[in-house]
Structure formats: C-alpha cells, structure tokens
C-alpha cells in the first residue's frame, strides 16, 4: 500500500469512527429525551465498537509513523487524526454517560426545564461534533471557527442552568433526576469542548499553526 | 512428492534434468576450442625457449678446447659476456655487444625519463583540452605504432647525418629514445590517469596550487606506474634490432665503446649477425646470445610485474 493509501485509509477510519460516535451521541441524547432505556442500552453497547475503532486508528497510526517518514501536510493530517480519535473516544464516553443517566432516571420524575436544557445542549453538542468532523474532512477552517463559536452557546446554557438549578430544585422527588441531569450538563459542556478541540485540529491541519480557539 | 497444483511444474525433474545434456555438449566443445587456442599460444613460446635453450646451452656449458687446455664449464657464461667476438664460433664472445647495449640503455634512460614523464605530466595534468592537445595525443598513438625501421631511417637522417653524430652509440641511443618515447609517454599517462580525480580535487580543495596538487599528490601516486612503463619501454629498446642497423651497428665492431661517439654493436644485432653465418656452430653461439637477451628481458619484465603488483592494490 502506498503512503497515500495508508493515510487515506486512516482518515476514512477516523470518519467512520466519527459516524459511530455521532450515532452514539444521537442515541444517547434521544434516549435521555425519551427516557428510552432500550435505546440507552444500545448506546452503551455501541461504545465497544467505538473503542475498537479508536484502538485500530491508534495502532495503524503507529504503524504508519514507523514505516513512513511523514512531513508537512501528511504529518499534520496524521497527527490530527490521532488527536481527533482521542476526542471522539471521549465524545463516545459522553454518549455512554447519557445512556447510563437515562437508565438511572427513566422511572423517576425529572425537572422539565432541566431535562429540556440537557436535550438542547445535547443537540448542540451533536451539531458541533458533526460540524467539527465535517470541517476536518473538508479542511474547512471557517466552518471550524464557526463551530467553535457555538461552544459559547453551550457554555451559556451550562452556566445559566447551574444558576437555575438550585431554584427549581424544590421538589424532593425530582432530586435524583436533577442531580443526574446536572452531571450530564457538565458532561455535555465538556463535549462541546471536545468538538472545539477537533475544530482546532482542522485549523492546525490547514494552517500548520497550533491555536486555542 | 510435490502437489500437482504447483504451476510451472516446478518439480525436481525440470530443475534437475532440463536441457542440461544438450547444453553440456555445446559448452564443452566451446571450452575445448578455447583450451586448444591458449595451449597453442603458450606452447609456441615454450617451444621457442626450449629450442633456444637446448641449442644455446651447449655453447654456454659444454667443454671445448682452446689449445690443449680444457676450460672449466662454470666460467663459460661469464667469459661469453666479456670476451670479444671472433671468427670462430666457439670463441666468439658477446662482450662489445653487451657493453653497447649497456651504453644504449644509459643514454635511453637519461633522455627518456625526463622527457617522457614530463610530456605525460603536461598532457595529462596541465594541457588545456583543445585541438592542439588532441592532435598531440593522436600523434603519440600513431608514433607508438610506427614501425621501428622508420625510426631507423629517421635516426639515420637526423642523428647520423644532420647532427653529425655519425654511426655512433649516441645516435643509436637517441634513435631508440625516439622509438620508445611515445610508448613511455602513453604508459606514464595511463599511470597518471589511474590516479583518481578525487585526489586532485582533494588537494585543490585544501588550498594547494595546481602545481602542488600535481607534484605532491598525483605524481607520487603514479610513480610506480610510470616506472613500470619505463621498464617496459626499456625492454623494448633492448630487443630492437632494425633501427640500429642504420646506425652502423652491424659493421664488425670488436672493441668496447668508450665515448658516446664510438661505434658500437648491440646484443640483438650481434645475434642477427651470427644467425646470418651459414655454419651450423654459429647457431649455438646465436642461441647463447639469445639466452642472454631473453634473460635480460625476463629480469626487466619481472621487475615491471613486481612493481605493478606491489603498488597496484594501493590506489
């Protein structure tokens, strides 16, 4: 296999992994939204696949670096792939967390506003992750920047939610759900960060410069 | 033994029997022809030497009588070297011819060495690569192949007549010099050429001048080759006969040359002379002369081979 092919394969693998992770995220968010335990379990089960994809990318990456001398764009691309895979793996964990939470709260009442916000944040993160991967695929640093900016919205939601939460907390029955959802919110906030990091990789890939968005 | 599926039936049969038999016959026939050729080439030389030796040694070693005294065998070869020629085959020595050859060699070496190496160094190291240089080169190749009689004619016209050296050992020496000069120049150039260019560049890159590079690095490296060329040139000069005939070397000279302008004879000339006599005994004497000539040649060739083997691997 030529160098070209090897790198292309690696990138394809990354985007396949991205697909998996996005599916898992969608499943996770929808499961949480609908308190759908089956879907939650499905989400959790998908994580093995994601981990496998992650390991494969890592392994292939090491092999690639061992057998080829990469420079310039090739090098940046393969580096971005390695790092993006780590972020995707994390986003996968996030989906798993949503799944777990769904299992914990499906039969308890949850505070509506918080629930709605979590779903809103979840959708935002899905959107961001998806755009981030898109930007990486298309070497589109404008999209990357635009995507990264969406994180402000996630952060805003997160902060406002944290401030709101104590006020809503009234009903003791809701407590379990509430706490669980708050951790989800925190988790999703991190998810946004991962999407941003992927966007940074796009920027690095295109410009060769490391920059924090 | 092997699965049939293996394609190209890579079985031991095809590998082992194959076309070997048919090839083998052609191959052996061819090799046989080559052997024959080499054998003939070598055998003739052996025959020649054997013939000369078997005839000549009688002359050199057999007892023969001078008056009533029987000479001691062992003295004969030396005597042969030192005594004068004679009308009697069994008394004829090669003394004057031997001395003449020594004279010739000395003259040849003194003139050829500086001119030969000098010209070679100039042509190989300093000459610009232009038409004149190319012309000189072509000239040299041609001169190296010009038959020796022509040099004889040249010597006759230039040294004997024009320069007025007469039919002297000096004229002979100079004629032989002209004869081997091209050979020596070509051989010396080869020796210089064999010095890798990287040596020159190495020296120049260290800040040596061209002159320093050539005379301190290139020429010392080439000396063994140049000396070999010189020795081979000399051995050619030793055996040359034809040009010396024009120098009057053939006239009956029965004294040792004492000045460069003395008349002279030389070993091959002496031999040629002796061959010309009809009596069978002269054959023995001629053979003895040839043995001496071959001996000298063998020594010089061995010297050349020795020098070459000694230094060849170094570069």
């Amino acid at each position: 296999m030529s160098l070209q092919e090897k790198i292309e394969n690696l990138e394809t693998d990354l985007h396949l992994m991205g697909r998996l992770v996005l599916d898992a995220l969608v499943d996770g968010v929808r499961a949480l939204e609908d308190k759908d335990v089956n879907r939650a379990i499905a989400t959790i089960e998908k994580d093995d696949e994601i981990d496998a994809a992650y390991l494969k990318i890592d392994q292939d990456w090491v092999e690639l670096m061992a057998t080829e001398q990469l420079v310039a764009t090739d090098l940046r691309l393969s580096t971005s792939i390695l790092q993006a895979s780590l972020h995707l793996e994390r986003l996968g964990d996030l989906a798993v967390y949503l799944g777990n939470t769904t299992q914990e709260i499906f039969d308890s009442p949850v505070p509506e506003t918080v629930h709605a916000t979590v779903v809103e944040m979840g959708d935002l993160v899905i959107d961001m992750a998806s755009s981030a991967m898109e930007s990486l695929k298309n070497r589109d640093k404008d999209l990357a920047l635009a995507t990264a900016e969406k994180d402000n919205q996630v952060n805003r939601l997160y902060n406002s939610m944290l401030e709101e939460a104590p006020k809503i907390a009234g009903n003791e029955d809701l407590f379990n759900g509430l706490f669980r959802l708050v951790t989800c919110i925190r988790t999703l906030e991190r998810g946004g960060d991962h999407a941003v990091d992927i966007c940074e990789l796009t920027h690095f890939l295109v410009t060769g410069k490391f920059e924090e968005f | 033994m092997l699965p049939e599926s293996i394609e190209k039936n890579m079985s031991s049969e095809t590998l082992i029997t194959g076309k070997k038999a048919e090839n083998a016959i052609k191959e052996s026939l061819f090799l046989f022809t080559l052997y024959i050729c080499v054998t003939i080439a070598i055998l003739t030389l052996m025959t020649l030497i054997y013939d000369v030796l078997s005839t000549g040694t009688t002359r050199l070693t057999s007892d023969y009588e001078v008056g009533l005294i029987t000479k001691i065998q062992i003295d004969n070869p030396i005597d042969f070297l030192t005594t004068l020629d004679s009308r009697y085959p069994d008394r004829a020595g090669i003394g004057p011819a031997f001395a003449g050859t020594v004279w010739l060699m000395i003259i040849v070496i003194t003139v050829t060495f500086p001119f030969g190496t000098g010209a070679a160094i100039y042509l190989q190291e300093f000459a610009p690569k232009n038409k004149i240089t190319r012309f000189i080169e072509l000239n040299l190749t041609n001169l190296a192949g010009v038959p020796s009689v022509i040099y004889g004619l040249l010597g006759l016209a230039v040294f004997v007549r024009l320069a007025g050296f007469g039919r002297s050992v000096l004229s002979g020496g100079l004629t032989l010099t002209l004869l081997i000069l091209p050979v020596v120049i070509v051989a010396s150039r080869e020796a210089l050429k064999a010095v890798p260019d990287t040596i020159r560049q190495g020296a120049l890159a260290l800040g040596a001048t061209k002159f320093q590079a050539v005379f301190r690095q290139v020429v010392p490296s080439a000396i063994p080759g140049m000396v070999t060329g010189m020795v081979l040139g000399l051995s050619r000069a030793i055996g040359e006969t034809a040009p010396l005939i024009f120098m009057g070397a053939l006239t009956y000279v029965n004294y040792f040359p004492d000045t460069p302008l003395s008349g002279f004879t030389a070993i091959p000339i002496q031999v040629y002379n002796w061959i010309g006599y009809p009596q069978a005994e002269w054959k023995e004497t001629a053979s003895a002369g040839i043995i001496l000539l071959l001996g000298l040649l063998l020594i010089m060739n061995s010297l050349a081979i020795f020098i070459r083997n000694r230094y060849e691997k170094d570069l």
Partner: protein
Amino acid sequence: METKETVQVNSESVFNVTDLSVSYGDFVAIKNVNMDITKNKITAFIGPSGCGKSTLIRSFNRMNDLILGAKVNGTITYQGVDLYDKMVDPVQVRRRIGMVFQKPNPFPKTIKENITFGLKVNNMTDNMDERVEKALTQAALWDEVKDDLNKNALELSGGQQQRLCIARTIAVEPDTILMDEPCSALDPVATKKIEDLMQELVKDFSILIVTHNMQQASRSSDYCAFFTTKTSDDGKRRTGELVEFNETSIMFTTPDQELTEQYISGRFG
C-alpha cells in the same frame, strides 16, 4: 544436512532456508540462517554493511557459484527442491529465479534486444513482440519507450535502465525476483517508481530485496529480516547472523530483539 524429504513444504512459502552458512574459503560470511520466505510477498534483508546480505541473496539463485571460493552449506529448498542438489543445473535455477542488481546493468544493445536476449536463452521465442510489450508494461516503462524500442539501452536514464533490467528479468517469467540494493544508484524519484513497481509485481512474483535503506525496507516490504555481524569470542572472526525475521510492521514498532531496535533506530553499536 537434511535430506529433501524432511523439509516441510509450506504451500505459502517459496523458499525454506535451513541451517544455511556461506563461506569464502576459510572465512564464514554468514551462518545459521533459518527462514521461510513467503510467496507473493516482499521480503527485505537489512543489516549493516558486510553482514552478508548480498552473500545470502546470491545463494538463492546460485550466483554464488560464480564466485571463486564461495561455498554454501545447509539447505535452501525452492518449492521443495533442494537448490544445491548435485543434479540441479544452476542455469535452470536462474531461469526461474531472476535477479536485479545494485547498479542498473542493461546490455549495450537496443531496449528490445535487452529483453529478447533473455527470451531467446530461455527458448521463449514465440510471440516475442507481445512478451516484450508485456514485460515493459509490467515494469512501468512501456509508455516511456514504446516509440523507441530500438534505442540503445545505455541512453536511458538510470531509473529507466533499472526498470529495463526489471523488465528483462520478468520477461522470462521467473517465479521469484531477487534484488540486491536495486535503488542505491538511483535518485529519489526513480526510487519511488521502482518501489511502486515492486508493489505491482508482488501480485505475481515473490520478491526478495536487499536494502540498506531503513525507510525503503519499512515502507515497501511485508517481511523483514535483520542480519548483523557478530564477532567471535576471541575477536578474530566476524560472521553474519540472522537476528530477527518478522513482519515489517512488527519489526518497526515492537521488534523482538534489542539489537534490531538499536539498528532500525540508528543507534547501532
């Protein structure tokens, strides 16, 4: 020495090397080599200069026969046949196991004649033109020379010459191609072409390649054998030995032997 029967024929392997040593006179250049070379794969031999790579690869098609004093001990079987069996004709061996040399060595003839020469000595005189075209096409040279088949091969560039040498080797339809540092005389562009070509060829042939270029071994071989010179205890004899034979990807990520790692990472010593 083993007899032929005891050597197990692995349908996947093309050469089985058992206890092989090669000496020049008294000097043992390489010893105790045991390896199976896999079919339709590229196997690279790497190792420091003088460790016996060339010596070893030459024993795969009995080119060592041509070297005075070279003596091969042990067994190399080729698809089950002992190559050094007394009955085996080296000429036949070389027809099946082609070789490409370090420096391109086209014959000073036309491009076409370079290829037809091999065909003729192998009695493959039918459809010569087709065969020439096929070989040149396989060697990725056809397009560059098709209008110029009668040009003298010496007028080709170094890389083209090397591809011509590969073409004439594959024209006689060997099963295996041995290559002794085939790119060391070439510039990177030409090298790239030869490497691409190897990837093409390995579909039909088994390829053994000697290279001192780590990169080349790592990027273009499937298996990799690392040899090194070991000095005898009294410090007098230096003999080549096989240190590690492994899949290339393993060799370059997690080699079994410390020595291999030192060598491939340029820390030899």
